């Protein structure tokens, strides 16, 4: 695809998402959001179905553990199941 001059110029001016300080701000924002969800728990009134839900921050730690466990299982399985791209013959596109 031929690039126009305008596009090349646009490339040179760094996108705001490329600047490290903005990325750092995004990170801080994310951590603040995490903290806020925990704080917000004191102000809402859930209707738990199960006892386990009443443990403090259940959704937070359960989400973290479930996600970490999934990545770990996937990593283990990848050692078994990984195959080269053209395992079933060449792709033609």
């Amino acid at each position, binding site marked *: 695809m031929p690039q126009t001059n305008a596009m090349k110029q646009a490339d040179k001016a760094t996108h705001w998402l490329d600047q490290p300080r903005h990325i750092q701000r995004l990170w801080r924002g994310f951590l603040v959001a995490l903290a806020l969800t925990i704080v917000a728990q004191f102000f809402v009134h859930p209707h738990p179905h199960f006892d386990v839900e009443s443990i403090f921050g259940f959704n937070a730690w359960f989400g973290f553990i*479930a996600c970490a466990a999934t*990545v770990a299982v*996937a990593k283990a*399985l990848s050692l078994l199941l990984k195959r080269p791209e053209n395992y079933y013959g060449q792709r033609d596109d």
Partner: protein
Amino acid sequence: MTDFVIHPGLLLIVGALLLPLLREAPRRFAIVALPLLVLALVWQVPDGAVWQTRFLDYTITPLQGSKLSRLFATIFSLMAVAGGLYALGQKSRLEVPAAFVYAGSAISVALAGDLITVFIFWEMMAVGSTLVLWSQGSANAYSAARRYLMIHLLGGVILFAGITGHIVQTGSVAFEPMQPDSIAHWLILIGFLINAGAPPLSAWLPDAYPQASWSGTVFLSAFTTKTAVYVLIRGFPGTELLVWIGLFMIFYGVIYALLENDIRRVLVYSIVSHVGFMIVGVGIGTEMAINGAAAHAFSHILYKGLLLMATGSVILMTGRRNCTELGGLFRSMPMTAVFTVIGAMSLSAFPFTAGFASKALISQAAGDSHLLYVWLLLMAAAAAAPLYAGVKLPWFIFFHRDSGLRPQEPPANMRWAMTIFAFLCLALGIWPQALYALLPYSMDYELNTAAHIVSQLQLLLFAALAFIVMRPWLKNMLASTLDADWAWRRLLPALSQVVAVGMNRTGLVLRRASLHASDHLLQIIQRHLGEDAKLARTWSTRGMSLWVLVLLLGYLLLYYFR
């Protein structure tokens, strides 16, 4: 029937067959207008049997309305509208008509009142979808289409056997709720589950769908698996086995999607995972659970359609399809990036998206039924889902490192199609009552409460944190992975090779043995009847008369002693 009601599905099928006859401009108009008309007609179908006729000894009902069938017919027509709009630039003249036959058949299954009608349109879906796949034109698509058709014909034969058995046993063709209590009903269940992408044959999905064209996959993702969910809701609500099958599918889909490198295969594995959620809902079988399964089918078509349109745009504009070959596209494709993020948030069931509105119902149903382990597993899956799509796809395609690619945004018609679906993804999350009003059972459920939103945000954000912390683990993990299709792409061909070689060898041995045996026989004959052999010599008259004398004497003796 009192008033004449047009069959929306049949109209779409007939219209699709006429599409190739039109010139370019009217054809483009018809591709958008026809499914819109069908969508309007779906809402003309009243409750109860509308078309009824006699076929052989049975009363068949090709058109029957209910809240559930209208819900599915609505989303199928919506998908045909957006898919048609998206595919206006498709060069293949076969793809869109085939996709409309496919969509029309799916709508007809949703509006079918009896098992014979279900079966007929079930098979037409297989034909339509195979043609969509085939129309991509490459050798890979052709062989994938063949494998795809094989699986679906197998499923069709099993379903046909089951329906025949059911009719023989009950004498009725009506499509009523069943239990897996006889061989016939098991066969019907298996036939349905094959189309739902259930194990062990689920690999047909990731094998076939990503081989279609950039627009073909969008159509393929919507109809087959969701029709299967629909017939399971009608045929097997509350079958406990489905809970476990669904849970297996959820985690199978999540893990494979996490490992996969091809961006559309990631999404296709995610289809299996989300259909798993729906099937768990069908298995739980309460009114809330059935509502959840139906609602999730509806919203899943929206956000998965949106995501496949966005990835289709990326593939069309860059010609690349792997996570590892893309990156940094947000610079030149910001709109597509926004659509992808909206689709990914909806897929992750982020608050104020359609995915949250529907997934919450299934979890709620598991909680209401006090199924602690099912509920915990659903929560774990809900936490892990954002990994592969919510974070991974937008991250690798649009952010991550800069791949140096500067593709343009896709054409306007494609952007509009994505806009419609992105709007619906957000609208149904913000006003879930609009979706809930369409569901088969009325329910009293408040989705956007502070408690629901806070707990869902906790779950998703902390899962994202885990993903970010463990990101180094994912390095070098993206690849093609082995799936069950290995059985019919490697194992079966290898086995048939072994059998063929074995038969060859045995044949050779047998031939040698028979040659040897016939040689031996010939030698024996030669020895006794050959030129100089005793039996072939000319004997003297004297000898002959002696032997005649001996025979006559023997005869005399026998006669005397008798």
